[in-house]
């Protein structure tokens, strides 16, 4: 009976105890790394934020028009704070991956490594999206002003098309970078973009042939008849 108790009950418990004891230092290491990571993230984030405030980075961004651009994008936080928080969360993420690695368990190690390998793609995708967003705002504003100054009635529509075109392009590039449905995104984007260009070309050819002819005549042969009687050109 004693032998049964030793083999059937205490044996597994002892084995479990050995396993726990074997993992315990790793769990402890994970906790320490997490705590250290939290502290380091806080220290680095705060230090970076203060440093950027001291060197008047916000003022510099204001001069470049970045603060206004952030406000227009609905971001009310100043650039120094954004950088501080970005550093904080980057360190937290790296510390979490390192902490998972400290467990030294094969599946978790593989997961941590794949997560680490994915980070550059994630960062690139975010950068692409941000760049696309700012570029689309810039281009749509420039297109809107140019279209209004040229007296084109659908100025807003043209500007909106340019904005969404760039944002869709940036979105497709970001998805491709993340490896999400790569082929579908590329093919879908190609078909959509090609369709838009074809539709635009057909519409222009059918509906604006006279306008194109007049424009070319004006460009290549000087002033058109329509501009006579008005000595001030408006565009």
């Amino acid at each position, binding site marked *: 009976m004693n032998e049964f108790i030793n083999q059937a009950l205490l044996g597994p418990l002892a084995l479990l105890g050995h396993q726990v004891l074997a993992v315990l230092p790793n769990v402890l290491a994970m906790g320490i790394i997490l705590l250290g990571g939290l502290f380091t993230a806080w220290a680095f984030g705060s230090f970076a934020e203060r440093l950027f405030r001291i060197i008047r980075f916000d003022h510099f961004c204001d001069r470049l*028009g970045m603060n206004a651009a952030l406000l227009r994008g609905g971001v009310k936080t100043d650039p120094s704070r954004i950088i501080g928080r970005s550093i904080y969360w980057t360190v937290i993420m790296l510390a979490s991956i390192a902490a998972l690695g400290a467990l030294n368990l094969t599946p978790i190690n593989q997961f941590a490594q794949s997560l680490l390998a994915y980070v550059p793609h994630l960062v690139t995708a975010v950068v692409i999206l941000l760049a696309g967003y700012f570029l689309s705002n810039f281009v749509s504003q420039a297109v809107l*002003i140019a279209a209004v100054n040229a007296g084109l009635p659908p100025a807003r529509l043209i500007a909106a098309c340019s904005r969404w075109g760039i944002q869709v392009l940036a979105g497709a590039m970001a998805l491709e970078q993340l490896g999400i449905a790569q082929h579908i995104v590329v093919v879908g984007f190609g078909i959509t973009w090609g369709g838009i260009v074809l539709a635009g070309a057909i519409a222009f050819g059918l509906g604006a042939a006279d306008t194109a002819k007049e424009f070319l005549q004006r460009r290549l042969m000087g002033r058109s008849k329509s501009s006579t009687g008005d000595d001030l050109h*408006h565009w």
Partner: protein
Amino acid sequence: MSDFYQNGVNQHVWETEVARFGIDIWMTTEAIASGGRVCQSFLGAKIHNPKDPAADLSAMLTHVMGALFALMEQHEGLWSRQEGSQPVPLIGFPYEVGVEPVHVNVERMVSHYRQGLTDLEPIWRQILADDTFTQLRDLQRTSVADCHIPDELWVQVVYDAATAHRKRIIRRDHLLKALTPLYLGRTASFVHATQGLTSTEAEQKIEALCHTFERMKPYLVERWQPPVLQPVAPALLHHTSTDTGGAHE
């Protein structure tokens, strides 16, 4: 004069766009700001090449207004503490210059202005003060003949734009180009107001506008950021409305 020219050479201004459209403003402002003695003389009508600068109004406005606003920023310490003006000494005899009639399509100008009011509203709202924009918007409901931007409102528009340019509310080239429909609206108002007047009477209208700019300067100083204003210095030079004949030396 040679010192002044040499100074311009050092600033590389002759190779920039300022030399094309903003040269009048640049030379006059720099001459005054440099502390040199300034006078005016009637040299005859200034004949513009028909293809230039009217060929591209938007580009011309960008250069002229850009040069003006840049100079305002550069010489902020000088103009912000000035009050009033005094006449510029005249060399030679003043005479009236005959000008050729100009055909303009006022309806098209007003149409451009109204399209700007509708389509550029988000941009104008950023550039202009609320009160200025509201007054402009109220003109939307008037007929083409009644669409008139008064002097005070135009001065507010220019001062708001100068302030926005300084504060970089939006990209500067976008800001300057977005002023084109406003300028056309104001030009249409000027055409309405001076139709049938003689050159002298039209000059008086411009002179009145200049006085409005001068009178409303506190509006600009108030909006133009914080610089601590110094005690009032002796009055600077008084403008003279002589685009048809005046030339600074």
